[in-house]
């Protein structure tokens, strides 16, 4: 079976994307702040869009593209929601610190 340029590039693409996933996941574990992790999730979604695109080209199942488009539109919502949490934490820092002196280290740096 011969492989075309396209096949090779798809292979390279998939390898790179998977490596990217893993790199991002590593950062997700390392953190160190919640913002870092949220960023990782956000990037993961963007990478996912790319992955779906490559996959659709590879399999010629273009139905999958709809998923990628929806992700492009909706995916950022999770980041927005998380950002809101971080913001809330920042805005309530004093209150939080007062309430639990011991606790604030937990969810942020």
């Amino acid at each position: 079976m011969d492989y075309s340029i396209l096949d090779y590039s798809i292979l390279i693409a998939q390898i790179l994307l998977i490596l990217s996933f893993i790199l991002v996941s590593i950062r997700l574990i390392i953190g160190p702040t919640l913002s870092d992790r949220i960023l990782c999730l956000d990037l993961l979604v963007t990478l996912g869009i790319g992955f779906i695109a490559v996959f659709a080209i590879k399999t010629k199942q273009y139905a999958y593209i709809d998923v990628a488009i929806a992700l492009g539109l909706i995916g950022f919502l999770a980041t927005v929601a998380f950002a809101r949490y971080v913001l809330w934490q920042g805005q309530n820092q004093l209150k939080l610190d007062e309430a639990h002196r011991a606790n604030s280290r937990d969810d942020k740096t």
Partner: protein
Amino acid sequence: MLLAVLSGFILAMFAPSLKHFFGYRAGWLLAILPAAIFVYFLSQYDQVMANKAIFEYHPWIPSIGINLTFYLDGISLLFALLISGIGTFIMIYAGGYLKGHVHLGRFYAFMLMFMASMLGVVLSSNLMALFVFWELTSVTSFLLIGFDHLRKAARRAALQALIVTGFGGLAMLAGFVILSASTGTFEMVDLLQYGNAIKDMDLYFVVLILILLGAFTKSAQFPFHFWLPNAMEAPTPVSAYLHSATMVKAGIYLMMRMYPILGDTVEWSIILGAFGGFTLLAGVFIAIRQTDLKLMLAYTTMASLGLLTMLLGAGGEGAIEGAVLYLLAHSLFKGGLFMVAGTIYHEAGTLDITKLGGLWAKMPITFVAAMLAALSMGGILPLVGFVAKESLYHALISGDPLALILLVVAIIGNAFMFAIGFAVALKPMLGKIGDTPKAAQEGSIMLWLGPLTLGLCGLAAGFGITYLGQSIIHNAISSIGNANAGTNLHLWAGFNTPLMLSLLTMALGAIIYMLFDRMRNFADAVLNWIGWGPDKGFDQFMAGLLYLSQIVTNRLQTGQLRSYLRSTFILLALVIWLPMIAYDAFPTIDFGALTIPTFSEAGILTVAVIGLYAILVARSRLTSIVSLGVVGFAVAMLFMLFGAPDLSYTQFMVETLSVVILALVMTRLHLDKADQKTGLEAVVATVVAVAVGSGLTLLLLKVMETQLDMKLSDFFIKFSATLAHGHNIVNVILVDFRALDTLGEISVVMTTGVVILALINLRPKGQNKAKNKPENASENAPKNAPKTLEESGQ
């Protein structure tokens, strides 16, 4: 007969209104019913005499073979007559005794229900029908003992009676079930045909014990006797009727009935002899210690029941004859004595024998009634009690060593009863006038009519014993013993051994009577030295039950969600692993034949695993949530890799919305810092988690080894476009092939909306959410964030 039984229940419903209209005089009216029933049974007398038995069948629950089959033979007739006859006088007596009581109507209702149930017990041939009526007597007895319910003692006594007789009843039920299931019939009449077959059954002994448990608890045999004296908390008419004349005899009735079916075996004789004998001795011994008239009577009742049981244990025609006679005598004299005691209490205000005296002049009729009863109880000529005693001595003399022991016991017991009977009847009546709370005077006719009539009946029965012996007593005995017994009973049988023994008894009794106070002190000392009795035992049992219950419950129901979840998961692991081991249902994994995942598949799997790891190790909950997003992402990607775009799509959307809601909620929580498990907890959790996870993996792999039948999916693929006009098969399944699932599912979603709205909006008073929300709530949310632990003052 059906009407005879049911009429009591029906009239019971109207008793309160009758009382409402006629006051205490309703007693006279209500007495008409038992009187009519008495007359009815009397009218059946000839037929019973002629045909041995009347059988009446009413279908009830034919599909399980339970019917109202009434069976009127000698013994039931005797009991029915006693129940209705004494019942008549009790109704009248109660009117006098409880005159002015607010709940007299209720009392009548209970009494009538009891009477009806009791008639049901003695008339039923069907074991289950008998059981039903039997339990009804327990229930009504509970209500009657607790009639004076504001008193703790009454409540306790009622509960005690319920628990003890309830226990016996359940045992008896088991016995009946075994008996009927083994023989295929519920009908006593049929059981009688089995002869010795039942006694040869493997389960004979079990059946015997179970049925005897029912009889013993009901008839207050040691060690189940304690509820009976406590039942004296009930108003006296109850004591007289239920706890001496009738209900406690239900056990005796049952043993008499069972005698031909289960009786006359070694087990039977030993058990009944031993328990009956011991109950007799214990009864009289405790009775003598009492100073309360009713309690003395109660313990002698127990003793008499012991005597009856003992006689049934001894078996043989003579003993049965003695038992039947004694039963008749006892019902008459004990019912009378109780009513006398009640009258004394009603008039004098106390039952303390040490305080009573010299009432005979004030209450002459009552005195006569008391004397008649006491003479009968003492077994003195010419009352029926005498005949009974003669008869039982006669029966016991002739027997084997066991019978001789029983004879001695009987003599001692009778001697005591002689003494106590006179003590009860004479002490309050004779001597000097005691210092009583109320100045006594003769009670109304309602109070003395009953005891006097019963006393006179005892007298009449004594004189008419020869006639009775040839008629009703004969019939009663023959329906138990199947013989010609009782035909030659005479009030005066000449000077024979029983008479000698009677004289001996009386002599002993007289001595005891004279030494009464000393005997009482002795009994007191002995019982105090023992210091424990089943009555105390009951409290200990209840407290123990309560204790055990709390220990068990607290152990199982810890109140901690974590322990519940732990148990649940451990069970899940067991549910998977145990049968897998038992059936050797492990999957066979051929590692060589595994398809190698593509690079993308492997990569996504890796991402999922990293996500899982991140969730588990995360110190903060928010990090876990973000990592959860990663796992969800990976799962969505897997769906996509394996041809499920709709799933992937939905998974992404749901994941996003979950995160939105999670973050929304998290902004309202001020959480404690890291909540990692302690070392041991972590180990346990890990072990359980690994067991659950690996078990499910193995199970899943095992399932995958089978060939999947694709019939359903093939159908969907085939008809999706052609008949359902849709090309996205998954969607067609959702909105057409399996639209009902979807309908249910949107119902869930809709309901969840309602529920969450309720959950957030609905707060207990004082916690209502703030009104007038500002425009941009998102910025304001933190301002109103929930109070923290410290702020709320916890």
